[in-house]
């Protein structure tokens, strides 16, 4: 009996391995389509969310985080029996706290960007698109939803690598795809849940992060109208936080230790957030476009595969700090490569985990793997052959002919532009398949990767547990870790929540925060029905501010938003509740100009 391990549960991205789980990809059902480059429509929004996380982690900051996490692990693994546990704990703690503190500080940004990509992003007019939208065009537009002829023409254009701003018909098709993906009951449930999240729940961070990113977007638009293109805005904001070698310099700094390192990282990040108001996005769009490989529709290449540190635009980081960050990351990546050559299994694993952070697991399924005496591999799901091919040459001697329980995994290489499928037996790849765009170099690289995604995720989870257990042995370290975590949570509540509620008049602030901390906008608008409407309007106005178009959609979508009244009445109820409790209408309806817009 085969079991589809990708079915059910929540999507997530592991920040160490950058490995993803997206249950909407059900390999038992979708494997054939994925191999052909057709991804399931049901996966559009979770895929965009997780790919945005992947994109943020596949960056200088993401690489630095993985480096310090792996460093903590290597210190633990390579410690000798009888080594002083206290010394070891402090050594490990020095690395671990850098990872832990940075992740906690950036959680709202991580989630805010992913939510913005999932719920608001639409293709715009600038010459670049985000990586998520790139793959919506490449893998989710199919003959089924846009017709055979249009699909053929668009794919030809993409393959000729025309610039995004030269492909209006492509983005019109993606726009339609996004409407299908967002204007439905399931997505409205998701948006409604987002808007009802307690604002102060910083351990989750979705609503606070989402409102922060939307707030920054309105700020950017007010400064420069080119940021009406949300794709450009997303690329800029992602780069500002995650391609920042200034933050890398603090994460990897040899001049700070444990709690001091956490404090330095925290102070830098807080300053960086404050600086956004001062620097105001001016000129950043042009800087990002200048660095992007617009001919390939992507914004950057892998930093771990072939380090090319000048590929990122420096957005207001002091030059010396920027250069220091490049040096430090370069040194640490070089060290990983040297260690890999030492032959120690732990070092080799660390090096590969670092390298394979560029690939994204779409889904996996257990299967029967039959290896014949002639070196053929046949994979069966419920006794039906689904994959077959010659055995991977380098593993011929390691896995003799026979029938095994194995795992089929589908991967996407978002930044190199190809897909791959592997079948593994006990973690050893016995069969690999690629989309036609994979180079021989990448094929060779892929076969070296750790291709049992569950094994990689288990390693990641276990390693974190082992590190936390070691740190918990020392009560002083445990206390310091608790203090740092609580301080960061308090700072996030203070800095981010204060920022997103800054429009609330001071006399109403305490009451508003109390209501928002209970159930987000749910208690503000007063009822589930009103919340549903706010969620719907937020989705509708992600596509257009045109009042006539939104009014038409309101009539069409009554079964989703469940409002019996007119659009004007529904808007009136929400704006009144918003004004009463927050001093802000939440929705801006301007019949004279024919516009409607939701700030949330």
């Amino acid at each position: 009996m085969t079991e589809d391990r990708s079915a059910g549960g929540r999507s997530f991205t592991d920040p160490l391995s950058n490995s993803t789980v997206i249950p909407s990809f059900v390999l038992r059902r979708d494997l054939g389509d994925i191999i052909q480059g057709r991804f399931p429509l049901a996966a559009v929004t979770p895929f965009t969310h997780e790919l945005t996380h992947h994109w943020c982690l596949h960056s200088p900051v993401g690489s630095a985080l993985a480096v310090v996490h792996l460093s903590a692990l290597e210190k633990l693994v390579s410690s000798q029996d009888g080594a002083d546990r206290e010394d070891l704990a402090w050594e490990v703690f020095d690395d671990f706290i850098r990872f832990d503190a940075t992740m906690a500080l950036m959680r709202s940004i991580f989630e805010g960007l992913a939510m913005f990509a999932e719920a608001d992003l639409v293709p715009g007019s600038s010459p670049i698109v985000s990586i998520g939208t790139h793959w919506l065009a490449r893998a989710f537009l199919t003959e089924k939803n846009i017709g055979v002829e249009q699909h053929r023409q668009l794919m030809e254009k993409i393959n000729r690598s025309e610039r995004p701003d030269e492909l209006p018909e492509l983005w019109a098709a993606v726009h339609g795809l996004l409407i299908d993906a967002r204007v439905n009951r399931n997505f409205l449930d998701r948006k409604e849940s987002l808007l009802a999240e307690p604002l102060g729940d910083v351990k989750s961070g979705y609503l606070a992060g989402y409102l922060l990113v939307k707030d920054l977007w309105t700020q950017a638009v007010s400064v420069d109208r080119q940021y009406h293109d949300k794709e450009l805005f997303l690329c800029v904001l992602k780069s500002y936080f995650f391609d920042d070698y200034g933050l890398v310099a603090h994460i990897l700094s040899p001049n700070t230790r444990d709690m001091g390192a956490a404090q330095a990282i925290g102070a830098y990040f807080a300053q960086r957030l404050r600086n956004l108001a001062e620097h105001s996005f001016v000129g950043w769009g042009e800087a990002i476009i200048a660095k992007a490989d617009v001919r390939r529709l992507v914004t950057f290449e892998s930093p771990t595969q072939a380090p090319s540190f000048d590929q990122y635009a420096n957005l207001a980081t002091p030059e010396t700090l920027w250069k220091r960050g490049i040096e430090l990351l370069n040194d640490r990546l070089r060290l990983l490569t040297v260690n890999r050559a030492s032959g120690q299994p732990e070092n080799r694993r660390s090096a590969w985990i670092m390298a394979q952070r560029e690939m994204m697991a779409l889904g996996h399924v257990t299967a029967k793997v039959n290896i014949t005496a002639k070196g053929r591999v046949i994979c069966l799901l419920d006794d039906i052959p689904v994959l077959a091919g010659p055995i991977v040459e380098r593993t011929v001697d390691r896995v003799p002919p026979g029938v095994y329980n194995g795992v089929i995994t589908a991967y996407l290489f978002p930044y190199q532009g190809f897909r791959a499928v592997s079948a593994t037996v006990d973690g050893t790849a016995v069969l690999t398949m690629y989309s036609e765009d994979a180079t021989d170099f990448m094929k060779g690289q892929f076969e070296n990767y750790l291709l049992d995604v569950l094994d990689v995720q288990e390693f990641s989870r276990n390693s974190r547990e082992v590190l936390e257990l070691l740190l918990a042995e020392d009560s002083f370290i445990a206390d310091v870790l608790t203090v740092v975590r609580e301080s960061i949570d308090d700072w996030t509540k203070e800095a981010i929540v204060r920022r997103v509620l800054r429009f609330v008049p001071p006399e109403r602030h305490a009451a508003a925060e109390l209501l928002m901390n209970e159930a987000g906008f749910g208690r503000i608008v007063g009822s589930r029905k009103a919340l549903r409407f706010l969620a719907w309007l937020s989705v509708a106005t992600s596509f257009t501010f045109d009042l006539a178009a939104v009014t038409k959609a309101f009539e069409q979508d009554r079964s989703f938003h469940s409002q019996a009244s007119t659009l004007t009445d529904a808007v009136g109820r929400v704006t009144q509740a918003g004004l009463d409790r927050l001093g802000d209408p939440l929705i801006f309806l301007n019949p004279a100009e024919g516009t409607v817009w939701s700030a949330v």
Partner: protein
Amino acid sequence: MHRSRVFGVTGRESWRLDACVVGRSMAMIRRAARLPSVVLLDTQTTGLSWSTARSWCVSTRRVVGQGGLVELKSSIAAVSVLGLSNADRLDLPEYVDSDSLTFRTPENRDRLNEPFTIAAVIVATAAALKGLVAYLAARSADRQETQIDYELEVTRQNGTKERHRIHVVDKGHGVSAELAKELGSLSGLPWQQLLPS
């Protein structure tokens, strides 16, 4: 009033209380009715026979006194309904007393999760479970669902946890009875007690 082998007293049943009395004599029933936190079950409405009720109470170790006084308590400590939305924070408190209800959001510390699912943790008293049945039934009706699936995490009295999946199909009469049976089976409480009023 039932004249013999009385399992409870009509008109005094209150789902807000979380214990019950099985009694044979009216004196005992009257005495028990004055106790706090006591539910007096009615054999007619529950449909249970005296012997079934008594053996059920004894087998689930709810005897708290001699002479037929039996405390009816759930065999489990709490039920967590997984996969709910933050929007459920708005309406669920109208059905389940706030003392019996907390919401649990998965932490986002070790990995970046997909949002939108939270768990409602409900103390497994008859009153709270009855409220939960009513809420899930109303939720299902509101969403025009003809069948519902929930993953539950049951916390035993000793703290151990187990996952259960409940699947209920609406055969045209709503889903309350089926939900009550499922939760009754998990908690050891008579399912009739869990039916919404």
